[in-house]
């Protein structure tokens, strides 16, 4: 029984067969088919179960507005839920499954919901699951989610890539129906840069779906010829399978191109989809119109569909939902369906027209002034009940019913910047208002001009006008002769009477009764109606359902439809896969990675890396036999303090500051003085925010009278640079100062430990004296190394040891670390990572990010006296605020456990001995902890109220989170070498 409902003709390649499955059953279709058309050709009407009541549903439309036929495609990691069968292009091997049914589509146990529909009306969530609140998350929500669902996801990583891209054009034309094609031809011939985007894989819009003629050609032939000309124009970019999803500011449009959705797997290296950002000078919306249904009892039975869709399936895809059909319409256009299906050899039981004076157009029975009141048929339409003009009832046997309540211009994108459509009485529909997004005009059926002739000439004229507007010469071009029938329609929204349910929004299962209930319960504003009933809140945004709801609300409120107004369409026009939004920013590519100059060497040493911002830094360097990180870190600390260690510190921000006012500039950005720093010296600097809080710290070296090099913390390198540019450009533009980052231009290594000088003397060229006398603590110089390579040397120390930092041009960084390690072998040099760096700075009591946490002041950090009163600097005034200078202000202290076997816990809080551990008794908190291999016990840094005077006090360190409560002694934060003898050695 292959393709029992396939007709002749159509735009499918019937010489080739595509095999596919639906719910495990094998079917065949042809290239050019959608999943919906192929299923239809195989006699399948039932395609899914509805969201809430699990009602059997079939296909309603033939386009992206489809609310019903949502299926799950593919398997494995590519499993993809909630795909509209009407736009899923058929390919060989496609596997599709219906969703939201159990155990099968034909017998769905959850259809019991349908029996309880009296309880599940509008607002049932709000009414039913109010109490008790605690039940919501654990009980109600999981049950509801299981029962009322859509498809399921694979829970595996998406194996495909998604691109993002950027395009530019003079004119973006959205939609390639008759209006869009005419516009593209006009603009293309005028030489403008044109992008023509269409969501279909076969551009042409209704030209492919209707039997109309353009001049001597069929609509499809004219479309094909026009596309052929357009594809030969280098200035026209034709984008099929591309949905323009949103109109954003300044002529920017979002579009999703489905590059590989029609393939089983993307070609090698090819993306699945591309999210384009299109920069347009002008845009023309040629999105056509969407047919609207008429609501009547059981109008959701599979087989009931839009009339225009029914003839689209017959004309374009040579498929019919049934061998005998009927049409229910309130306008002339609906009759075309009967004409076209008759021409294809399909029986038409009757055309039921609500108008008493309905014209006879098709060669079949016409029931004028009649209404469809109900339908019958389990899992698919078998009969429709018709109330004739004289009030009598009649049953018509038919397997499908095409319904037309008229057409709505597709105004979606005109509303994305809060444009409000206006009512047009001629067609009883909303048309675009004047407040479309700037630069966007509309042509064709999207304006309410529904004839083919009007679409062609309107598209051409609108394109020419848009181009003239931006100074490109263009004129409308002659278009072939085409039908120009006026719209003839009598507004009719729903069939009154009856006890059953008449469906408006089939995706969210909203009925006419729900709208009436909302009105009765006083949810009468159109926005309240939407949210209370969920009408139009599904992924189709109510493209086929909103108007029905508005009409009923208008009737109940005794208003006109324009008085009721509309809700607003928002981007995206159709659902967008999360993958397309993520693009390439997935997994390790989520952000760029920064590598240090010694990275390759460190990898060879087996270093364990840690992410610090975007940087990868060596955390420690395990040696054979070391099984715990602490073993490696303790060894690195002890070896450095004993002899010498090397650490890559390239990641610290380096900012080159030059200009005749450079010193004054630094005086303003640093709390402490820099103006008098001698050339050849380095100074520690503390930078405050405007509000007086500590922002960042680092050292700044004066290489020349008007030349400084500032270092920042790794984490704040970018934000400090931005701050400095703000200060330079906005606060003091009269200062002569120039800034540029040189962070990655120099490979910088800390060489620390008693033998650091001896080691460096082996690479520093002999003419540079780095003895303690010639190159004392805090000295800096531009030198050469290894026989003439320019380098910078700073005698600064974060570890508390005699230490230097040496910088060479980055391209020599790899060679330099290898050389330093090689010449250091004589001193048992070790490389050390960020963990050992942290241990040593805590032992020395140096503040780092944990202490400079945005809530601390210079006073808190024990550096209150560094804030110079002799000059004005950013933050100095507000640092004097009373509240920041209370006698019991937090002060940085050191902590040691009374019982040295006990660890100190970061994040713990300090309480007086004997006090209850609660917030009221809080005396301070711990910021940094480490095990000090030099002292043989845990140590910590923290902030304590009035901490400067509390050394020797025993306190309890409490962390209710970890259950910690240990006694600690308040000590100096300088655990090692408090007098600084080592670093001055």
């Amino acid at each position: 029984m292959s393709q029992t409902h396939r007709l002749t003709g159509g735009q499918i390649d019937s010489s080739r067969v595509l095999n596919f499955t639906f719910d495990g059953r094998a079917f065949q279709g042809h290239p050019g088919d959608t999943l919906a058309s192929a299923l239809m050709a195989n006699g399948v009407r039932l395609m899914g179960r509805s969201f809430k009541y699990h009602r059997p549903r079939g296909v309603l439309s033939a386009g992206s507005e489809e609310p019903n036929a949502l299926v799950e495609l593919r398997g494995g990691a590519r499993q993809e839920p909630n795909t509209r069968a009407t736009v899923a292009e058929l390919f060989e091997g496609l596997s599709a499954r219906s969703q939201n049914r159990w155990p099968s589509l034909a017998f769905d146990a959850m259809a019991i919901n349908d029996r309880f529909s009296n309880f599940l009306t509008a607002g049932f969530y709000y009414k039913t699951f109010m109490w008790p609140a605690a039940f919501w998350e654990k009980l109600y929500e999981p049950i509801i989610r299981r029962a009322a669902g859509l498809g399921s996801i694979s829970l595996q990583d998406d194996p495909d890539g998604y691109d993002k891209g950027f395009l530019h054009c003079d004119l973006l034309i959205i939609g390639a129906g008759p209006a869009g094609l005419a516009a593209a031809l006009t603009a293309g011939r005028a030489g403008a840069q044109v992008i023509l985007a269409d969501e279909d894989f076969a551009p042409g819009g209704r030209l492919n779906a209707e039997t109309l003629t353009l001049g001597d050609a069929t609509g499809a032939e004219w479309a094909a010829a026009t596309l052929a000309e357009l594809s030969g124009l280098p200035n026209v970019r034709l984008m099929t399978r591309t949905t323009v999803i949103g109109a954003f500011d300044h002529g920017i449009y979002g579009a999703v191109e489905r590059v590989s959705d029609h393939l089983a797997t993307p070609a090698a290296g090819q993306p699945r989809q591309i999210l384009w950002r299109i920069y347009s000078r002008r845009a023309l919306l040629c999105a056509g119109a969407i047919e609207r249904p008429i609501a009547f009892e059981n109008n959701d039975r599979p087989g009931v569909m839009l009339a225009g869709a029914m003839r689209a399936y017959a004309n374009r895809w040579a498929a019919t939902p049934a061998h005998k059909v009927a049409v229910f319409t309130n306008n002339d256009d609906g009759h075309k369906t009967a004409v076209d299906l008759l021409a294809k050899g399909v029986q038409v039981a009757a055309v039921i027209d609500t108008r008493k004076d309905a014209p006879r157009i098709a060669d079949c029975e016409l029931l004028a002034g009649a209404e469809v009141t109900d339908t019958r048929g389990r899992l698919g339409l078998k009969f429709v009940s018709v109330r004739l003009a004289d009030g009598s009832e009649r049953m018509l046997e038919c397997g499908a019913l095409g319904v037309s309540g008229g057409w709505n211009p597709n105004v979606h994108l005109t509303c994305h910047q809060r444009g409000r459509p206006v009512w047009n009485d001629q067609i009883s529909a909303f048309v675009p208002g004047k407040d479309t997004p700037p630069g966007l005009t509309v042509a064709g059926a999207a304006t309410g001009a529904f004839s083919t002739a009007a679409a062609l000439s309107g598209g051409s004229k609108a394109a020419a006008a848009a181009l003239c507007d931006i100074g490109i010469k263009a004129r409308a071009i002659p278009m072939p002769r085409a039908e120009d029938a006026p719209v003839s329609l009598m507004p009719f929204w729903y069939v009154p009477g009856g006890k059953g349910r008449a469906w408006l929004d089939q995706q969210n299962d909203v009925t006419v009764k729900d709208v009436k209930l909302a009105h009765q319960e006083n949810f009468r504003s159109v926005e309240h109606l939407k949210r209370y009933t969920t009408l139009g809140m599904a992924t189709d945004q109510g493209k086929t359902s909103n108007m029905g709801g508005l009409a009923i609300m208008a009737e109940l409120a005794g208003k006109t439809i324009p008085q009721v107004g509309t809700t607003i369409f928002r981007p995206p026009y159709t659902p967008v896969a999360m993958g397309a939004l993520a693009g390439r920013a997935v997994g390790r590519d989520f952000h760029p990675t920064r590598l240090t100059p010694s990275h390759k060497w460190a990898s060879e040493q087996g270093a364990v890396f840690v992410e610090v911002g975007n940087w990868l830094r060596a955390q420690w360097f395990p040696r054979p036999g070391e099984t715990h990180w602490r073993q490696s870190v303790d060894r690195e600390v002890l070896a450095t303090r004993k002899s010498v260690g090397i650490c890559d510190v390239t990641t610290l921000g380096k900012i080159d500051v030059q200009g005749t006012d450079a010193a004054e500039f630094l005086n303003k950005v640093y709390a402490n003085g820099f103006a008098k720093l001698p050339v050849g010296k380095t100074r520690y600097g503390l930078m405050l925010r405007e509000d007086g809080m500590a922002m960042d710290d680092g050292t700044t070296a004066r290489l020349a009278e008007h030349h400084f090099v500032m270092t920042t913390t790794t984490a704040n390198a970018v934000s400090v640079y931005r701050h400095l540019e703000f200060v330079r450009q906005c606060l003091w533009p009269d200062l002569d100062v120039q800034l540029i980052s040189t962070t990655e231009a120099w490979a910088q290594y800390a060489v620390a430990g008693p033998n650091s000088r001896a080691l460096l003397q082996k690479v520093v060229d002999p003419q540079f004296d780095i003895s303690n006398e010639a190159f004392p603590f805090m000295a800096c110089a531009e030198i050469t190394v290894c026989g003439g390579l320019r380098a910078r040397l700073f005698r600064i120390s974060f570890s508390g040891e005699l230490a230097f930092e040496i910088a060479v041009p980055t391209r020599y960084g790899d060679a330099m670390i290898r050389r330093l390690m090689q010449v250091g072998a004589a001193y048992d040099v070790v490389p050390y990572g960020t963990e050992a760096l942290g241990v040593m700075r805590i032992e020395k009591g140096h503040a780092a990010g944990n202490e400079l946490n945005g809530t601390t002041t210079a006073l808190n950090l024990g550096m209150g006296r560094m804030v110079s009163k002799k000059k004005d600097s950013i933050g100095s005034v507000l640092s004097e605020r009373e509240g920041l200078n209370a006698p019991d202000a937090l002060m940085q202290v050191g902590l040691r456990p009374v019982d040295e076997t006990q660890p100190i816990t970061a994040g713990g809080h300090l309480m007086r001995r004997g006090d209850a551990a609660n917030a009221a008794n809080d005396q301070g908190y711990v910021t940094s902890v480490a095990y000090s291999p030099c002292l043989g016990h845990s140590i910590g840094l923290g902030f304590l109220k009035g901490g400067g005077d509390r050394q020797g006090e025993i306190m309890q360190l409490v962390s209710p989170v970890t259950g910690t409560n240990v006694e600690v002694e308040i000590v100096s934060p300088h655990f090692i070498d408090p007098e600084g003898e080592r670093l001055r050695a």
Partner: protein
Amino acid sequence: MHDLIATTALGEAGPRADRFEGLSIAENPDFALVSVAARLDRQEGLSAAMKKAFGLALPDVGLSRAKGALSAFWTGPDQWMIEAPHDSHEDLAAQLGAALGENASVVEQNDGWVRFDIEGPRASDMFERLCPLDTRRMQPDAVSRTSIEHLGCFVLRRDAGEAFSVLGPRSSAGSLHHALCTAARSAL
């Protein structure tokens, strides 16, 4: 002469080259780069000194200009980058510093950047997957700052053909290279 051996930004001994249909992406390590920013109210002095010492007229907003081995491109108000072959001009910063004196702040940028030369008729097909620049409409001497995969980069159009250079932060050379090649594979 020192005895340290340079590595490329990608951490290798020699530059990386990748070929695609209609496009090549080649790392070019042979460039010296120096930033030149006019001191306050010294723009004219800087232009004159540059012209006198190197015969190079500093280009206007969004442009680059070459003279002999040197070329300059605009990077911001009263700021330029000066480019020259590295192996012959490793000391470019020192040369410029001496020639420009108090007219400008001069900073060596040789190793702050990685440079990829991109050439071929499909170059713009790759760029449109990377950055919002309209490379098809860029003039032959145009230069622009743009963001490629979150990295602040310069894109320079080298000549009337389809030759571009991308200058990006050196520490992220690997990520930038990955982004360029991924886009090229995807687009071509």
